[in-house]
């Protein structure tokens, strides 16, 4: 089983987690994809998104358009995403997951993942600090969603706890990015807009 097959499996499982709420829910493809995923598939999905986050934060830091403050924030969040990826990767190995997802190696591959997850924006089209903040908010939203769904699928108590701890941290990331995107007092309500975090 090569990486391409694994990526297809991941995307099919990802569809099972996220497509039910979209306008495609009635399509035959969506019907086929709504079989609940296994724990290994769930871990593969969240790991895939964590690796996309790692790639994205690295690209943003390399872009040279971030202010000193935002650069420090992105550096901090990158560190935490790396910790998430390591922890999830270890769990995936523990449950016997083969061919774990890898971090995107090209901009084109990363842009394709944005498209697959229906995240607005592209890496190629992101040039200013505000663009990076919006893009990261979009990816963090998908991460929140993936963990939210994982909480309903996973049964292992330690894994549930881990997913809960990470989901909470991704929500914190979302808020920190929103605080940077909406820095004035008038925009405070954008920092934590909803009482129930379910992601996008």
């Amino acid at each position, binding site marked *: 089983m090569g990486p391409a097959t694994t990526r297809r499996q991941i995307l099919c499982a990802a569809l099972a987690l996220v497509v039910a709420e979209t306008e495609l829910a009635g399509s035959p493809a969506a019907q086929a994809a709504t079989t609940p995923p296994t724990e290994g598939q769930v871990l593969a999905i969240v790991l895939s998104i964590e690796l996309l986050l790692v790639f994205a934060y690295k690209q943003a830091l390399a872009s040279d358009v971030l202010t000193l403050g935002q650069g420090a924030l992105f550096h901090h969040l990158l560190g935490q995403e790396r910790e998430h990826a390591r922890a999830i990767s270890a769990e995936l190995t523990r449950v016997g997951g083969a061919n774990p997802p890898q971090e995107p190696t090209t901009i084109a591959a990363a842009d394709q993942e944005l498209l697959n997850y229906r995240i607005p924006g592209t890496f190629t089209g992101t040039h200013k600090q505000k663009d990076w903040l919006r893009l990261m908010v979009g990816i963090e939203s998908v991460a929140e969603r993936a963990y939210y769904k994982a909480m309903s*699928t996973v049964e292992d108590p330690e894994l549930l706890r881990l997913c809960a701890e*990470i989901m*909470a941290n991704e*929500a914190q990331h979302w808020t920190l990015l929103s605080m940077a995107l909406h820095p004035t007092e008038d925009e405070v309500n954008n920092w934590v807009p909803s009482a129930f975090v379910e992601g996008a």
Partner: protein
Amino acid sequence: MLVGAVVLDGCGGGSSSTPVLQTAPSSDRTVDVEILNRAIDLEFKTVAAYTAGIPLLNGTAAKAAKQYLSQELSHANELQGLVKEAGGTAHQQKAYYDLGRPRGATDILMLLSRLENQQVRLYVDQVAVLSPGPVRAAVSAILANDAQHMTVLRSALGRPPAPTAFVAASD
């Protein structure tokens, strides 16, 4: 006498095209009720803290606190609903909560931050014990929101807003 409860097990809080009926033993529902009522007590204590503390806050902190008060009330209401669905009696807001003697904005922010942290810890510690499906999904959504509150409150206090990658692991 409760002999069991039939619950829908779907995909988290969203709709599922293939819901699966499961029978949850009444002991599981009793455990849910107990944990959810502990959470309700904490949510209402946090509501009381926001209510008492907002007049001592200014500017951005006051604005944020007003929004979070409303969100905490939503959490309490949601949890009460889940308790009722589980066949239990939901705890109500008490007439009095011992909030200590906060004297100014900093004390209030520290109190609120502490209460939000307690909520996050409770949810992280108990989420695996709760019934899968709507209960666990709702608690996950609330837990993440309380973590967001913690971030803003810590930021207002000049503390690292998201110090750990695994929230509640060491906070």
